């Protein structure tokens, strides 16, 4: 990997970054570190706006933006990256355009997607530092967990109405000591319906400007090694009475990610973790995968939980055990091979799987995604 000391600047860049370079204790080397750095900003909204503007202006060499959303009129009260002309455009595209006009010497990478358990590790792995500017609990825990699993620093900020929080999570200092992460601070999110996770949100427009700028400051400190990052501490700002407080945050033994007995070793279902899904997800198999098993002669049992009259109309050779009788016929459902459970389109079979898992501890059940309808329309094998 090339060292930041190999980083060169053009005349224009040197002129642009002059006020950085002349700060004692910052200098050319910190500017080189900024240019060498790859920072991922998750969310280009209220917090993402000042973050991206200041990080781009500061000369962070590669800035990633994750956002799936489009610019809306109601964003303009606080999302200063965007103007009236951007309404209706993809936020990541509008942000890229604005940032490229602000600083043509840096690279902007856009990710037009929602960050999910499926794509988070893949997106984050190419960056040095993550800055979390999202607006919901599932994504907060996702960004945190992915950062810890990948060993990246997560510069966190959060806002609600008149209040803001800033912290630097999972930061490894020069001695190799790693600081606390979000799960050390908050082991679990508020259940839906309890404050502050109720829908009556709202935020004072200038607040993300203040808090997002502090977040940008922490990103710059983490990248350059100048100063002391806000690791092991939580900063709070109350805009109403101008109270600021800083609390100590310590690593905890019972942290499921990196405590003494880690139980989370891969990304989980964060909607479920945050109570936003009432039902537990079940293992699924697509009709293509299922067909593949059939063709390859994989050992499995197929269970059809529809009603007898539906079975008579069409079936794909499964053993008929209607949903209402599944528990009393559990002895017919094998535990020693994979079992694919299907119904018409997947809802009843998911329910059957949940009941069987809960009552009898099955862990070998797969729900056929889209049910017999998907199978017949997408695979339609010769029977």
């Amino acid at each position, binding site marked *: 990997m090339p060292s930041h000391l190999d980083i060169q600047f053009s005349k224009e860049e040197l002129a642009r970054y002059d006020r950085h370079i002349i700060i004692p204790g910052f200098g050319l080397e910190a500017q080189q570190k900024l240019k060498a750095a790859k920072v991922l900003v998750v969310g280009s909204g209220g917090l993402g706006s000042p973050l991206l503007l200041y990080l781009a202006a500061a000369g962070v060499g590669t800035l990633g933006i994750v956002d799936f959303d489009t610019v809306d009129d109601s964003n303009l009260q606080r999302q200063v990256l965007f103007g009236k002309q951007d309404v209706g455009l993809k936020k990541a595209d509008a942000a890229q355009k604005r940032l490229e006009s602000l600083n043509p010497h840096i690279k902007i990478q856009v990710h037009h997607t929602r960050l999910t358990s499926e794509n988070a590790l893949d997106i984050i792995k190419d960056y040095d530092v993550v800055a979390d500017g999202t*607006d919901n609990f599932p994504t907060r825990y996702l960004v945190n967990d992915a950062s810890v699993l990948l060993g990246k620093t997560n510069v966190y900020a959060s806002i609600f109405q*008149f*209040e803001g*929080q800033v912290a630097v999570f999972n930061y490894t200092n020069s001695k190799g000591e790693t600081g606390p992460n979000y799960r050390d601070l908050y082991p679990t*999110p508020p259940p839906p319906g309890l404050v502050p996770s109720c829908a009556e949100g709202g*935020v004072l427009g200038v607040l993300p400007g203040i808090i997002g700028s502090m977040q940008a400051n922490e990103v710059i400190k983490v990248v350059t090694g100048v100063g002391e990052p806000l690791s092991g501490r*939580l900063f709070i700002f*109350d805009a*109403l009475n101008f109270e600021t407080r800083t609390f100590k945050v310590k690593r905890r033994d019972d942290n499921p990610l990196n405590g003494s007995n880690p139980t989370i070793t891969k990304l989980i279902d964060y909607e479920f973790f945050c109570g936003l899904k009432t039902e537990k997800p079940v293992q699924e198999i697509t009709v293509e995968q299922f067909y593949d098993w059939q063709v390859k002669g994989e050992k499995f049992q197929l269970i059809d939980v529809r009603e007898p009259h539906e079975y008579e109309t069409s079936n794909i050779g499964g053993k008929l055990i209607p949903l209402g009788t599944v528990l009393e016929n559990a002895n017919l459902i094998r535990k020693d091979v994979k079992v694919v459970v299907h119904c018409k389109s997947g809802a009843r079979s998911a329910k059957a799987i949940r009941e069987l898992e809960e009552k009898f501890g099955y862990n070998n059940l797969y729900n056929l995604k889209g049910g017999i309808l998907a199978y017949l329309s997408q695979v339609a094998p010769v029977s």
Partner: protein
Amino acid sequence: MATILIPTPLRKFTENQSKLQVNAGTIQEALQDLASNFPDLKKHLFDENGKIRTFLNVFVEEDDIRDLQQGETQVAHDTVVSIIPAIAGGSI
């Protein structure tokens, strides 16, 4: 007496007061005193088993009570107690 600082999201249960004085010798007593003065606040502070909710952190001065003696942490008349809930942003 100790001072408890109430975060924005909980102020609607405390008649919009951001700073309250409570009569208490420990954190548990302080929060109970708070809940008895503002009954609507109770379910937001304690779970079904009477434990302080895990998405709320309670700090005595700058220390988390989980690093002290939890609810048994002593408070003096000039102690400042902060309740800091998890916040995520504008949407749920």
